[in-house]
């Protein structure tokens, strides 16, 4: 079952949230105090998001302070796909601080997860600067995703 772990620092007006497991009809999002200004969400441990989970997520986003800044960390392609496709999946002020994406050898036999960071590997406007990843064999690895599609949200 999915978990929503939160920690509020009321003096700093920040919330640190870690979401893990399945975001499905059983997932329970929790409210964030109205005074919070920055909400950081760690996404690395999300297994998958069902359509019901998308609805719960959108409803949770709608409950957040509207002018808060949402910082998404270690987002995986499935989360990014929802950012790109679903209305209301993020706040108006949202920063995708980092993403975890697969790189693969040409034959698809070796896949590694690579962390890309906002500012270093991608930035607003859609500018990309993907790293060079080499397999243990010395072979150059390629992104096992379509960068222009994944980072479409940068142009929004």
């Amino acid at each position: 079952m999915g978990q929503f772990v939160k920690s509020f620092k009321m003096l700093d007006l920040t919330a640190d949230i870690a979401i893990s497991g399945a975001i499905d009809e059983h997932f329970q999002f929790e409210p964030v105090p109205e005074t919070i200004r920055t909400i950081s969400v760690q996404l690395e441990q999300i297994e998958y998001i069902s359509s019901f989970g998308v609805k719960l997520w959108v409803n949770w986003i709608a409950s957040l302070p509207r002018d808060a800044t949402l910082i998404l960390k270690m987002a995986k392609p499935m989360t990014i796909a929802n950012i790109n496709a679903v209305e209301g999946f993020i706040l108006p002020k949202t920063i995708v601080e980092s993403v975890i994406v697969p790189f693969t050898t040409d034959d698809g036999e070796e896949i590694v997860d690579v962390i890309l960071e906002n500012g270093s590997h991608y930035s607003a406007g859609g500018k990309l600067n993907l790293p060079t990843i080499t397999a243990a064999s010395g072979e150059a690895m390629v992104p096992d995703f379509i960068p222009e599609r994944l980072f479409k949200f940068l142009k929004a």
Partner: protein
Amino acid sequence: MSSIKDYLKLWPESNHAGITALFSDIAITQDTDNLPSKKFDLEKTIVVAKDIPVRALLRLLGSGYRHIVQENRSDLGYALLTTGMILKKPSLFFANPIQLLFNSAGATAEEKAETKTHQIEWAPTDSKEARFEEIMTFLSARPKLKNYRPIILTLLDEMIANALDSRLQNPKCRLQVTLSPSRLSFACFDQHPTFPQEAMRARLKQLAAQPKFEVRPGERGAGLGIPMMINQCTNFYLTHQTGVGSLTVAAIDLRLPLRELEVTPRNVHLFSV
């Protein structure tokens, strides 16, 4: 308007007579400029599209078209033949979808021998997590599928959620997982006696018109299940037999790397038996 004659080159000449007979009362239209003519019998029309995005698929489905295949995929012949066979004998597909899909693919004896199947009779009281792990354990025979985990779990969740919709008094479903050298397929049979096809098409048409998908308000689900399932697979079938139940089939082409899977145009079928 096209006809099967335009596509006969996809098969050996020895098959042409049989295929022409199969398609004798089936119309084929091309989705040119995204404006297919509506003068065909929608029940027996195949739309051949060329690399159209999921949103355009939803528009066509919302407009009433049942079968959409993609011209620029290397398996167009397979897709057309499968669809022709479904249109000719929809009850056969409903009874044993994977067998029909295999037969139309012309699977070799070796491929059939290497194909494994796992079946689950799923009740609402079953632990979803336990059943998902049971399926992932079955699929661990192919190490590559570890990287497909989010795709697989999303597909399964959507299928099971629809099948075990609590509006039924005693919902049950049967899930068949088939792993062949080239494809991973899920077939989910449920017992819903009726199927809100018109409401579903209206919803798909609505989604197609939205710049970004909007979740459906109210107590029930998001209304995004079908586009989400289509996005996770390469071939998608959703059919229903009144009084019997529904069948959802999602197949993933395992010959494609994940990045190509992402952009490979989908073949989709939404019809009644």
